[in-house]
């Protein structure tokens, strides 16, 4: 199966193009967009880890190592499309247009954190594993029924393929030929469980065979491979040719979450040879004349300022409103719930 689904690359891990036909397709604008977004989400990610360590936000699941997968895939979407992230995909949602202040708020236990900007179809991060997969099939199905060319993109990890929802979501997509892209980030581990204990199949891409669905296995640390393969899948979906499963082979460089200790289950030195996606892009930029020190340092500064400002805004935002516990359970709350709310808020006032 590994032969049937070879890992597709556009560049090698030293940033040299393997397929020179891509040289024309990769213009300065794409390179800079890629670099800017990858650096931006990495800066966000590292900041979030620090904030957690200082007790300024809650438990946080870092995505470092997966920047190319998240940015490359998110950049292939356009407004009107739908994104269904997991808890580890804030790099993708930020790239697609989620608000950074709200993203920090989410990790501070705030419901405000899941509200997307106007006009952006970004679902709340799925915490129960694989549950978002059928949602992406359903929204895509609705777009198809409405006759639009919008598509839905579902993110999920390797562990998620063990849940029923993964198979149910793919089967529905296959039966109803919905414009859905199922984007798997195979980062080697589901918490402590390595892929070879998660499944006996050698690839995740091969699981699409059972649903007669096109699939591809790509180097998830190669932002161009991710972007161009994603583009193909998206175009197929827009044209009415149905769903695709993409397996992006990548690596979680850090812990599962800030509460996790990977030294418990990862052999010493495992993954150290993997070239970080951002380093790889940097080498590419140097190899092909896209590296411009001035632009790089401006970009870095701009991003750092943005992240700092977002942290400040998160910390200065008004406290969570206890009325929010009650106000959105139903469009029109039943009487007893209004009573619970009134009583509790009165009690709080009395304090």
């Amino acid at each position, binding site marked *: 199966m590994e032969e049937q689904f070879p890992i597709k690359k556009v560049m090698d891990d030293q940033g040299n193009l393997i397929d020179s036909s891509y040289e024309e397709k990769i213009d300065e604008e794409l390179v800079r967009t890629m670099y800017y977004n990858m650096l931006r989400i990495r800066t966000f990610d590292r900041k979030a880890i620090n904030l957690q360590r200082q007790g300024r936000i*809650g438990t946080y699941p870092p995505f470092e190592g997966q920047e190319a997968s998240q940015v490359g895939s998110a950049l292939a979407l356009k407004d009107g499309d739908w994104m269904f992230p997991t808890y580890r995909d804030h790099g993708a949602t930020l790239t697609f247009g989620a608000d950074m202040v709200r993203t920090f708020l989410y990790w*501070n236990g705030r419901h405000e954190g899941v509200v997307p900007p106007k006009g952006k179809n970004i679902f709340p991060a799925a*915490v*129960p594993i694989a549950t978002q997969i059928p949602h992406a099939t359903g929204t895509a199905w609705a777009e198809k029924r409405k006759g639009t060319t919008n598509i839905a993109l579902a993110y999920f990890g390797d562990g998620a393929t063990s*849940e029923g929802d993964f198979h149910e979501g793919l089967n529905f997509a296959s039966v109803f030929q919905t414009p859905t892209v199922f984007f798997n980030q195979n980062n080697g581990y*589901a918490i402590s*469980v390595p892929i070879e204990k998660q499944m006996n199949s050698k690839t995740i891409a091969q699981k699409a065979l059972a649903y007669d669905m096109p699939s591809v296995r790509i180097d998830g640390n190669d932002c161009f491979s991710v972007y161009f393969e994603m583009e193909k899948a998206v175009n197929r979906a827009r044209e009415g040719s149905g769903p695709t499963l993409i397996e992006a082979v990548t690596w979680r460089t850090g812990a599962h979450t800030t509460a996790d200790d990977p030294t418990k289950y990862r052999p010493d030195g495992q993954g150290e040879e993997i070239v970080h996606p951002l380093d790889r892009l940097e080498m590419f930029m140097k190899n092909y004349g896209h590296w411009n020190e001035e632009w790089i340092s401006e970009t870095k500064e701009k991003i750092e300022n943005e992240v700092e400002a977002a942290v400040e805004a998160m910390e200065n935002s008004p*406290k969570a409103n206890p009325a929010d*516990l009650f106000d959105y359970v139903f469009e029109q709350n039943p009487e007893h719930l209004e009573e619970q*709310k009134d009583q509790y808020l009165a009690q709080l006032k009395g304090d």
Partner: protein
Amino acid sequence: MDLKVEQKPEVNSKTKQMTMIQAINDGLKTMLELDEKTILLGEDIGKNGGVFRATEGLQEVFGEDRVVDTPLSESGIVGTSVGLAVNGFKPVAEMQFMGFIYPAYDQIMTHVSRLRMKTLGHYSAPMVIRAPYGAGIRAPEIHSDSAEALFTHMPGVKVVCPATPYDAKGLLIESIEDPDPVIFMEPMRSYRAKREDVPEGKYNVEIGKGNKVQEGTDITLIAWGAMVPVAEQAAKQAEEQGVSCEVIDLRTLYPLDRELIAESVQKTGRAVIVHEAHGTGGLGNDILSVINDTSFLYLRSPIERVTGFDVPVPFFSLEDHYLPTAKRVLESIYKSVNF
């Protein structure tokens, strides 16, 4: 005042200071040693020792065949446990958090609970399903649910929820030895909250028996799991105002210890039921009906309930507003005694 009312059974062994999570680990280890049919299944329970370290070190001792890191599938874990159980093994399955038990709900509701009844006793699926539950540790969403009422409403499974390290180990061993399926709820907030003396080796705490943790005369507080310390705190504050509270830790949620509830409420004539789960459809209502059926004529005031609100368990910035507090319990105590 005699605080520890219940006499702990004599155990022929030394004790060790343990937290609840250590006591659970020790209970699992004890049963793995004593009964080779015992098999542990779950996500990240082997090499990683569980995300809370409940199974720490067990795979090293008992091997990958008995302490099994399963694929990420709760329905798979419980479904295969049915198969293992009918074919000679005693599965002890871990749900990483109770909020992730829902994919297994189908298996529990349609098979685990009714296999014995529907086959007239020919088959049964004795197993223990452990599930850390509850809010208050700033966990991400869904991790904080208290879903006991879904299971107490399900005939054919027992539901157990210890509040102390001692009870956690003794009830876990009892659950593993029980001939029927047991949902074993573990209050995450209490995992490392305190240490107490826990006997080494095997001992049992009976399922179906609550524990009077504090004797009192004016009012009965009924709680379990993470709400026991909250009730105790309220009782202490009430005591300072001259209200004597009896505190009951139910320990088993199905079947209820009707006798203990009735005896206490008949003595005090008042009761406050405290639980973390939502009020509507909550177990408090069943306790109310036990009181109604057994003790109506002894009551001096309406029964009070202090519960989570009828809203989904919120993200953690609001969880302190969701959870019952000693203050809310205290208000209900006063409402009841001043009726």
